């Protein structure tokens, strides 16, 4: 038997004119964690779908446990011990934990009648595989994302999985939850199961993986041991260009603060928060989920309830009552979840860009000029190099990074004094991330005051000239310049 559990050579797949996979070579060792990395659209998901039998390959060989496999179907993949945990976890929010755990094996066993006792037994067996304890009768939809994930993992283990493929499992998790997940992954790995971990987050890949396979434009550009790879090489392989961490150097900080917050309190969310912000600064606010960082931003944007303290804008004490009011006071907010809160996905790109500045475009009687709308939005498309050939297309046709650029341009269209960015690069590729960071640096140096709220410490360190750390609703630390390091922040958070 070979050293590999799964070995794929020369895998080729075309969809019409698109060469999705170009002779990809790929191998997974048993009892190891292998990361499949690459930017969006590089062919990762196509490759996964070939392994799981959803797509059929055009060319290439697949060898599993030393046996050549000519044709894979989803059922065959399950029988071989290949399990995929999709990003949405494939769970049923309306059913109980027990049903979610047992339903797949019941269907596979071709049962017709429900036997509660057998279901319960199956569910208990599944949970015992990783020693996980949860109320079997709790409704799946009521669980946290991390718990849902563990249930999905337990379910996969029921099928004597030898290879578990996890599709971007950390996207919706907090740092703490990621740590817990990694613990489980290591536990599985040590029990001899091979894990294929799909991700584009550099830190995670280096933390968890033994082997890495990096794909770009349908080709695999690197495969080998993680230990042989440096972070710099990794970024190069991912993006095809040399990217240096581009630290923010403030050049244009004003003397007087544009925003001053004094003892601001939102009962139960945060209390006695005081800080000031000058034009040209990028202020980072970081902390764990639930530390009050997001609520602080919401309060500044008129979406929170202020129980005490004051906000001073340009020397004048103000009350911000609603998002419209915040906009009038020249404060912009880019939400965490850009898909549901920041964008109308099924509206043209142009409309999205101009959404919060339609007033500038309206004429008598409130009519809109469409030509003008497209003209103006095209300026932004060019300025931010948003990757589209036509601003009439829906925003949903763009990748995460480009969508984020739309959200940014939407706000920048209005003259702003303060721009609040919440998790600006969540789910964005490294390349696009760099573009967005560079853009924010430019904006700050042109005189905008920026607040970045993020739990991506690397992002905070690179982009901010000042950082505030929050914990349990209060500010527990502040640092500037060279004192801003990941270690230093972690020290305070913990």
């Amino acid at each position, binding site marked *: 038997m070979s050293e590999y559990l799964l070995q794929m050579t020369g895998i080729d797949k075309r969809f019409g004119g698109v060469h999705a996979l170009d002779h990809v070579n790929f191998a997974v060792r048993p009892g190891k964690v292998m990361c499949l990395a690459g930017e969006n659209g590089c062919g990762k998901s196509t490759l996964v779908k070939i392994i799981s039998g959803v797509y059929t390959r055009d060319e290439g060989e697949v060898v599993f446990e030393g046996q050549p496999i000519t044709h894979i179907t989803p059922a065959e993949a399950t029988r071989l011990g290949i399990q995929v945990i999709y990003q949405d976890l494939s769970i*049923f*929010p309306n059913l109980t934990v027990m049903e979610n755990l047992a339903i797949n094996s019941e269907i596979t066993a071709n049962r017709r009648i*429900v036997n509660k006792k057998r279901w319960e037994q199956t569910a208990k067996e599944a949970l015992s595989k990783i020693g996980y304890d949860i109320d079997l009768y709790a409704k799946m939809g*009521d669980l946290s994302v991390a718990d849902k994930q563990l249930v999905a993992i337990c379910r996969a283990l029921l099928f004597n999985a030898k290879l578990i493929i996890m599709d971007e499992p950390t996207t919706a998790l907090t740092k703490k939850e990621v740590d817990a997940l990694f613990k489980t992954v290591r536990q599985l790995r040590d029990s001899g199961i091979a894990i294929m971990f799909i991700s584009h987050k550099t830190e995670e890949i280096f933390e968890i993986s033994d082997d890495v396979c990096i794909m770009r434009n349908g080709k695999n550009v690197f495969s080998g041991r993680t230990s042989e790879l440096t972070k710099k090489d990794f970024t190069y392989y991912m993006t095809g260009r040399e990217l240096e961490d581009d630290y923010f150097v403030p050049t244009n900080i004003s003397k007087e603060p544009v925003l001053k917050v004094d003892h601001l309190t939102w009962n139960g969310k945060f209390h006695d928060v005081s800080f000031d912000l000058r034009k040209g600064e990028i202020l980072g606010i970081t902390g764990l989920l639930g530390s009050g960082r997001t609520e602080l931003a919401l309060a500044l944007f008129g979406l929170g309830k202020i129980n005490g303290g004051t906000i001073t804008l340009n020397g004048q004490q103000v009350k911000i009552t609603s998002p419209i009011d915040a906009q009038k006071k020249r404060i912009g907010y880019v939400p965490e979840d850009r898909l549901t809160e920041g964008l109308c996905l099924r509206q043209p790109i142009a409309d999205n860009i101009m959404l919060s500045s339609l007033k500038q475009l309206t004429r008598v009687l409130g009519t809109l000029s469409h030509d003008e709308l497209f003209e103006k939005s095209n300026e932004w498309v060019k300025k931010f190099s948003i990757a589209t050939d036509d601003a009439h297309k829906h925003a949903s046709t763009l990748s995460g990074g480009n969508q984020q650029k739309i959200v940014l341009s939407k706000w920048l269209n209005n003259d702003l004094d303060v721009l609040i960015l919440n998790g600006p690069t969540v789910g964005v590729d490294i390349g696009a991330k760099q573009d967005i960071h560079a853009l924010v640096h430019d904006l700050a140096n042109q005189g905008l005051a920026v607040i970045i709220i993020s739990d991506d410490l690397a992002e905070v360190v690179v982009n901010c000239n000042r950082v505030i750390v929050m914990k349990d609703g209060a500010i527990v630390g502040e640092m500037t310049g060279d004192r801003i390091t990941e270690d230093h922040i972690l020290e305070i958070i913990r």
Partner: protein
Amino acid sequence: MNKAKLKRMTRKTEFYMLIVLLLLCVVVQIKSGGKLITLPGVFTRLNVTVLRTMVVDGMFAMCSLVVMISGGFDLSFPAIAALSYSLATTICLNNGWCAANPLAGFALAVAIGWVLGMLNGWIISNFKLNTMIVTLGTQTFFTGISMGLLKLKEITSTLPEGMKTFGKLYIFESADPASGIRFTLSAMVLFLIALCAIVSFMLNKTMFGRALYAIGGNEVSAERAGYNVKKTKFLLYSAVGALAGFIGMIRVCMESQSIPKAMIGKEMTIIPAVILGGASIYGGEGTVFGTMVAVGIISLVSNSMLILGIDTYWQQFFNGLVILVGVTVSALQAKRQKQ
């Protein structure tokens, strides 16, 4: 553990609906001077009428319930029922069938309903279209066949004898002590009870039933889990069609008449009742028990109005209220779950 069970129970819509039903019963019992239930005889003219209204409405509600659990909306089942029974009775009448028993009529109605349901199922599962739009289309289409193409007529006094006598079967007979008017409890109630038992077993104890919940909860996951979603949907809509045909025939027998237009707009009173009973407008939720409680509330109110001295015009008002309350509660619950 017991506490958790209690907590889970009180979070369900059915629980509150049951309380509403019981309160209503008490109100009607007191206001009517004890006409809802008498002891030891239990049955009264009022409660047998309530049960009688529940037969057809309750059975239709089962059609609507199973579809809603799977995440769909069926607006066409009353139209299917109407076309099935009108055509079936017309055929029986023309051939002189059903003089002794209504079996041929039932067989025909079920077969016609099944075919119409298959059309729904085929369109919905093959083209993956919005079920509400599809059944809105087929509803109008089926009514059009009945009225325009076949020109089916009302059949009243000429209805085959076998159907009439079957509809008059009863399991209990008594007379009102005050007025001396005879009243009976229709035997058709047994069909309602049987159907409730079958649907309940199907939903909770068969993999097909769990498939409906799974599809209603997350269709993509159901497919990945190994369910044949296409086949399940096809089976579901064809079964609902056949069932609608059967229910339609029960109605013809009970009313001793076949009126092609009688079912128009029926879905607009049934679907709100199902939602009121705890079925989610987004799919994946709903129980037989909750649905029957809601149907009970609606029948009780509409039949008690006269006795309570409320103008029957208020029935429209009440039905509207049911729709609003039911849909609002359902939407709020879905929202809470998302959070």
